[in-house]
């Protein structure tokens, strides 16, 4: 080993950090034969001893630092612990907020859809709505009328008329039957109708079901029958609001549905 190699190893040698035993022995051999490198190693070892001795110097942080840190820790945990938050109040405010927001959203959607169908929609839609309304007018509530073959079998859009004949076309927009056995003879409760594209349903993690009262004319915009005699009365619906506050689906409740009765009573109050 020459002096240059020895110099490269001297730090680890002096700090007892030279892992390679062969190299360590060779370096020690060299220092035994070279007085300059031996003196250099002695200095380095003295420095290591001095540094080791100086490790404990410096003391600790004062007690007020610990007090400050501890109070910061406590305040952080009080801030994030759920028990510390006034949950009941927040929940009430939150649900009231969501109800109002949902009612507004539904009303806007309903009015927009109604206007679209009545004033700017294609002639087919306009005719459809007109046909529905006429049919509803022509068929009084609780009147047993044989199903009109034209509506059921001619391939036109199914127009749901109030009838005890339980027409085969009495399906919700989602395609599932609207449980006709349990429905009254006029308007029917429906399954959930999507308000946003189906693809967006994957983004729903949680939601709230909110009951709202809407103008009865909204039913027409969803292709549902409208009882003209009850036109002045609102119709009850349940709206599914996703976690981002967007109305995702709606289902209309029939007038005899206990959920509707409670909604109506609530609205009277």
């Amino acid at each position: 080993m020459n002096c240059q190699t020895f110099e490269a190893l001297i730090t680890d040698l002096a700090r007892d950090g030279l892992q390679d035993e062969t190299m360590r022995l060779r370096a020690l051999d060299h220092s035994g034969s070279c007085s300059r490198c031996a003196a250099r190693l002695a200095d380095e070892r003295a420095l290591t001893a001095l540094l080791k001795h100086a490790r404990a110097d410096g003391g600790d942080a004062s007690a007020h630092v610990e007090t400050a840190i501890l109070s910061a820790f406590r305040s952080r945990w009080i801030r994030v612990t759920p028990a510390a938050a006034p949950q009941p109040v927040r929940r009430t405010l939150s649900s009231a907020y969501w109800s109002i927001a949902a009612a507004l959203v539904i009303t806007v959607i309903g009015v927009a859809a109604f206007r679209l169908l009545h004033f700017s929609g294609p002639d087919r839609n306009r005719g459809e709505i007109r046909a529905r309304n006429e049919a509803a007018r022509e068929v009084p509530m609780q009147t047993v009328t044989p199903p009109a073959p034209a509506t059921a079998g001619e391939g036109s859009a199914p127009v749901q008329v109030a009838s005890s004949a339980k027409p085969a076309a009495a399906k919700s927009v989602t395609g599932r039957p609207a449980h006709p056995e349990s429905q009254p003879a006029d308007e029917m409760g429906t399954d959930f109708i999507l308000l946003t594209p189906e693809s967006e349903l994957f983004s729903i993690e949680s939601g709230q079901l909110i009951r709202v009262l809407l103008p009865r004319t909204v039913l027409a915009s969803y292709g549902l029958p409208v009882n003209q005699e009850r036109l002045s009365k609102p119709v009850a619906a349940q709206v599914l609001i996703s976690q981002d506050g967007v109305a995702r689906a709606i289902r209309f409740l029939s007038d005899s549905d206990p959920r509707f009765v409670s909604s109506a009573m609530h609205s009277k109050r």
Partner: protein
Amino acid sequence: MCGLRPGKSDMALEDVADCELFKLAMAGEESAFVSLYRRWQGNIYRFSLRFSGSASIAEDVTQEVFLSLIDSASRFNPALGSFSSYVYGIARNHLLRRMSRERIFAPIAENSEEENRGPHEEMSRPSDPLGDITQQEIKDSLHRAIAALPLRYREVVVLCELEELKYEEAARVIGCPEGTVRSRLHRARSLLLHKLRKKTRKDSQTAGIAPAGCTP
């Protein structure tokens, strides 16, 4: 490696590994946090004091390090490095920011003893001033010499020699390759020896004694 074991008693916490203690503390266990603080505050304070040469900065930085730990608990990943590397890294960042703000990067000149006595005296408090006078002088000289090193050398001396970090850990704290730490330490030690030798020579001349190297 660092599993969470809640519900440990204060006595048992003394034996818990740093990263596990940290997880317990960040899960809200105050006793674990106190334990962690008491285990590490001295190291962080001394590191900051040696790094900056100022007791007030050292106290502030110690406080900031633990506040950072509270606020950004999720950033620590035991798979990426030891807890010691993590806390020293936070401390170093705070120190650099603080020193940059206060413009105290210039190495302290080791020649003027009167000027430099202040912060270094805070590092060493002898219990028997008369008996330990020589030893104390040597240590003071060493601390002054460390404080006078350029920052890149000073930090490796403090981390590797005084805080006993491995090259690998120091490299993670500083954010440089292990080889750089090794070469900087080699250079830093040479500079320290040079400064101490100079100081010894000067003292010997003042006292009329022949120079005797730096051996303490």
